[in-house]
């Protein structure tokens, strides 16, 4: 049942906070800066790419544990915070001392103009709360969503190390949850206090929040959601908002109704059987990738390059798939591994191969009111018999947090030296995430050899004709996609020389 609720409740910097009368299209950043005059969080780009607005979100995850992640406040809609805890840069320091993260930043001379600094501090705070002793590589990954134009990053990476040393001598760490690093873990009494505070905000019924004719509903069950989606086919279906935030901020759009997937427990589930790995549509990219990496570690390297930690923490796998962008990176891997999606319309469900969802640029085989409920991946055991080989490659101007010029996923099964099956899926090469069926056909039934690979590279030119844009020329895209196949070949041979720079 949907009750008409008029306020959003969350914890802001540790204290209960209630919002009413604020348009549901309002972003968290606007709310903090313009309504509360909490101006520590900055707007640098308003599209989740610079990280100056980074704040930390804490919530109780499906396992009942506290999940702490950085998010981009600039593209996070205010009503999605209902029942969660938000920490902004203003919350870290005590009355008498800077937080260890902040003090480390000062000690390391890690701020110059200072505009990006609050965002870095909060990204580091999220790292501080999640990792007890991160490597430099992990620190870089944690900061992949934060741009600094002044320092050159070295002192910030130093601060990422020094903050732990400062925490160990910080007088407040024992008492104050906020100053306690991950080393104190879930044992810190503050965790229980925070979990209890979050529990007290939990709702029995859906949040239904309307202001000025704009309505936001976060249903609690799949049935409620599906009924609303069917009745309102033009509603925006909101997952993490990492794209819808841009429709609002950049295209300056609004919609009378937003339906949020994030509060439906069943859509947050990851289910693993011997044969299948299934993701509810609202599973965050970060959680989905971690689960996929356990089954397919070959994917891990690209997932760390997929957007940034804040975007992966907010964005959902269902959203990425439903968005169906030709330059979305999850689809090539999912398609090549043989993923299916379960679509739901009202009470009816149907499952289709993921690649058949995409008909053309921004055209899908979904009906009006039909939405993606589950994404299912076969496990290794469910792949065709033989030696499974997987290659997943991303190419972009910048290593981290960049949209692919080309993203290629290659999955072949070799049985007694012969390619038994081949699935090649490409991103950035057509109007949709697309299989290269002629290239696949050039491999299947052939001996696994450089000759066959070269034939597949040639065939690929008949599969796709990529466009030229600001990211890359069509010619370059084709050459790289072909070379990805060549790299895959070399890697399958266990080459003795270096094959990658990343």
């Amino acid at each position, binding site marked *: 049942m949907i009750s008409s609720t008029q306020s959003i409740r969350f914890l802001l910097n540790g204290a209960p906070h209630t919002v009413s009368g604020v348009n549901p299209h309002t972003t968290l950043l606007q709310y903090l800066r313009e309504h509360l005059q909490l101006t520590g969080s900055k707007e640098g780009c308003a599209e989740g790419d610079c990280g*100056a607005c980074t704040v930390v979100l804490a919530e109780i995850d499906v396992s009942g544990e506290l999940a702490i992640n950085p998010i981009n406040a600039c593209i996070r809609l205010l009503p999605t915070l209902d029942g969660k805890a938000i920490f902004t840069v203003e919350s870290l*320091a005590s009355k008498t001392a800077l937080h260890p993260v902040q003090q480390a930043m000062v000690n390391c001379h890690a701020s*110059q*103009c200072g505009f990006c*600094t609050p965002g870095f501090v909060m990204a580091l705070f999220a790292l501080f709360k999640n990792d007890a002793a991160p490597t430099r590589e992990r620190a870089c990954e944690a900061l992949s969503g934060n741009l600094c134009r002044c320092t050159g990053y070295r002192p910030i*990476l130093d601060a990422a190390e020094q903050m732990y040393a400062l925490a160990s001598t910080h007088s407040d760490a024992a008492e104050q949850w906020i100053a306690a690093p991950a080393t104190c873990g879930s044992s810190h009494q503050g965790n229980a206090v925070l979990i209890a505070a979050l529990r007290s905000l939990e709702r029995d019924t859906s949040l239904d929040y309307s202001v000025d004719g704009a309505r936001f509903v976060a249903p609690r069950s799949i049935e409620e959601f599906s009924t609303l989606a069917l009745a309102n086919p033009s509603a925006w279906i909101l997952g993490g908002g990492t794209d819808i935030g841009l429709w609002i901020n950049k295209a300056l759009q609004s919609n009378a109704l937003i339906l949020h997937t994030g509060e439906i427990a069943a859509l947050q589930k990851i289910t693993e059987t011997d044969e299948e790995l299934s993701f509810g549509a609202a599973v965050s990219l970060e959680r989905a990738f971690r689960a996929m990496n356990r089954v397919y570690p070959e994917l891990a390297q690209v997932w760390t390059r997929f957007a940034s930690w804040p975007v992966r923490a907010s964005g959902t796998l269902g959203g990425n798939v439903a968005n169906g962008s030709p330059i979305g990176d999850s689809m090539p891997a999912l398609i090549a591994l043989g993923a299916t999606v379960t679509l739901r319309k009202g009470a009816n469900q149907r499952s289709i191969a993921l690649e058949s969802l995409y008909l053309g640029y921004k055209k899908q085989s979904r009906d009006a009111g039909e939405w993606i409920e589950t994404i299912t991946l076969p496990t290794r055991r469910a792949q065709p018999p033989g030696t499974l080989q997987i290659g997943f490659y991303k*190419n972009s101007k910048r290593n981290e947090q960049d949209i692919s010029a080309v993203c290629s996923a290659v999955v072949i099964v070799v049985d007694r030296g012969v390619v038994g099956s081949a699935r090649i899926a490409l991103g950035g090469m057509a109007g949709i995430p697309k299989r290269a069926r002629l290239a696949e056909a050039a491999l299947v039934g052939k001996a696994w050899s450089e000759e066959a690979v070269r034939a597949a590279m040639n065939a690929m030119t008949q599969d796709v004709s990529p466009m030229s844009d600001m990211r890359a020329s069509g010619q*370059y895209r084709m050459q790289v996609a072909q070379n*990805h196949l060549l790299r895959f070949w070399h890697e399958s041979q266990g080459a003795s020389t*270096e094959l990658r720079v990343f």
Partner: protein
Amino acid sequence: MNTTLNLDAAHDSAHLHVSGAATYTDDIVEPRGTLYAALASSPIAHGVFNGIDLSAALSCNGVVAAYTAADILGENRYGAIVHDEPFLAHGNVEFVGQVVAVVLATSMRAARIAARQVKCDITPLAPILTIDAAIEAESFLGKVFDITRGDPDKALLSAANRVSGRGEIGAQEHFYLEGQVVLAVPLEDGQMHVTVSTQHPTEMQQSAAVILGVDWNDVVSECRRLGGGFGGKEVQPAQYVGIAALAARLSGKPVKLRLDRDDDFMMTGKRHDFAFNYDVGFDNDGRLNAYDLTLSSRCGFSTDYSHQVNDRALCHLDNGYLLSNLHVRNYRCKTNTQSATAFRGFGAPQGMFVTEHAIESIARKLGRDPLDVRKANFYSAERGMTTHYGQTVEGFWLPQLVDQLEVQSDYRVRRAAINAFNATSSIVKRGLSLTPLMFGVSFNASFLNRGSALLSLYLDGSFIVNHAGTEMGQGLFIKMQQVVAREFGVAANSVRSTATNTSKLPNTSPTAASSGSDLNGMAVLDACTILKARLRPVAAKALGCEPDSVVFDQGGVTTLDGGTHIDLKTLATKVTFAKVPLTAQGFYYTPNISWNGDTFSGTPAYYFAYGAAVSEVAIDTLTGEHKTLRVDILHDVGQSLNPAIDRGQIEGGFVQGMGYLTSEELVWDSAGRLRTHAPSTYKIPTAADIPEIFNVSLYDQANHAPTLYRSKAVGEPPLMLALSVWFAIADAISSIGDRSVMPELTAPATPEAILRAVTLRQGAAQ
């Protein structure tokens, strides 16, 4: 003298930055009734601007007013030097993104929605978008600049060897994290107060006065800090200040104008992109005896700083090398694109890049290590110490610095290791490069080389220091506090810096050309000297000593023998009773410099800053991706005012330069629309892009010129150390085949540019 100066004092606002408590322009509590402005711009690159329809915009929710060029009260002209840019377009439009109207509304979002409803009636004209098109159409800013030194034609003909080369260096967006922003508040009696993120408060004051048709004394312009500038907030905020001031005057309300990031990209100017081709003659040791160069820059639709940027590019062609016989044709192309403007390095990166490119071509042709060719070309007492613009180089320790870095970075050992690696590695190739740096410090326009300061001692013994410079992250304010601290024997963090304000210090130069601490530091020192002279007689009387024997130390004054100590609070009170003022104004101008732009000659640099960097990279010949593996930098800041701050400038400048030459690509389409207008499409480096081994050290040598405590400027020079990254990439590509030619690599070296050059080398090698 105490040692307060040479400390790694933290940035004056570090504790505020990290806690979100540092107030930027957009963070200021808005005055009651503040309205929000959004700009409407031209969708056409070039055309006759017939008219504008505001009706749809005015009927949008929350809209209060909209203004166009017709509403301007004063003049519709501004500009860095030549006033040839309209605040609001009239008559014609000259690039996609040119501002045509401003919309005021009760919220930022309402203003932005309405601004998109402004409709322009434009008759399109053929746009000139590229350097080639501009040269073809002879669309230039002024005449073609042509200079000859020595007899390059004869030298070319008689040269033992010759090689030619060509290339392109792309533009760069400043990408200050804080976009352009101004808050204009109308005051009584026709006055206006503007708070603005700017490197040049005086220019902003002038801009508001011009558009309003009022005197300069009717306008106050103020800036406490910028969220990054890099040259992009030197002249460019003037347009937004002018428009906001106009809107505030006409509406009678405070007006905030903050550009959305995409608008900022579309409307503001960038670093000039350059194209070049050269023909050089050289001896068997690689000494460059003849240099014939065509150097073209894309300047955009207005003059801006383009002449000065091109002059600086030409001045920095030498980069430490003797250029005896030189002929340069320099095209300054007027195009229908954003007005290219100041950007850290100000032409020098492009000038140095071109000559380094030629040096590498020579080295490859001779089969020499480029480092040896570089060394053979340095200025020397035997070969000559006079630049191609006639300045005699003094204090030239670049060769020694390069020698030291060569050893420190294990250059030769690593060169051999890389050669061995490449011999067996077919897909990943490595490259290594050492590039030097010689950067002339001072504005070429001599009159700009001045600083001013206002130092006030309060009755409680505390100081406020003001000066002409702005704080944009470079640590200028803490350095200035350190000067006061050293002179008065107090703690640096007890001296307060307050906002740069045109009503406190008028007629200031911009904080630019790396000169902030050189100029204002000397002015602060002057103010300290004056104030101390005022305090000495009173202090001497109280201490019972001669005025010359008064020592300022430990928060007060004492005698040479360290006897009685009187604190500043007590002294300040005594000084006031003695009817002596506690405020001093300091001034400084750089002596002994001159510049004649017409003859391209003079002594424009007060001194030179030196440095060198060694970069090692690995490239992937399948995709063109690269990784910077290791960087070693040795840089000359003279006697450092603050080693921690200086190191920050070196590393930050280097990484900004690395982005410039690798991942930062600006792409315009055939209609003149910039397609890379947000961080989603324009990629500055992230933390993972910096080298894991990043050794930075300061060269131990005081400035030979009598600068502030013998320090050297540090803001711009380190950016050019990143040339070593680009040349290391080129080195890796050249290892495909026999290393005998310079790869056809453009800048920035994006994966696509690298793969293109790799493919060409592979084709040639087969």
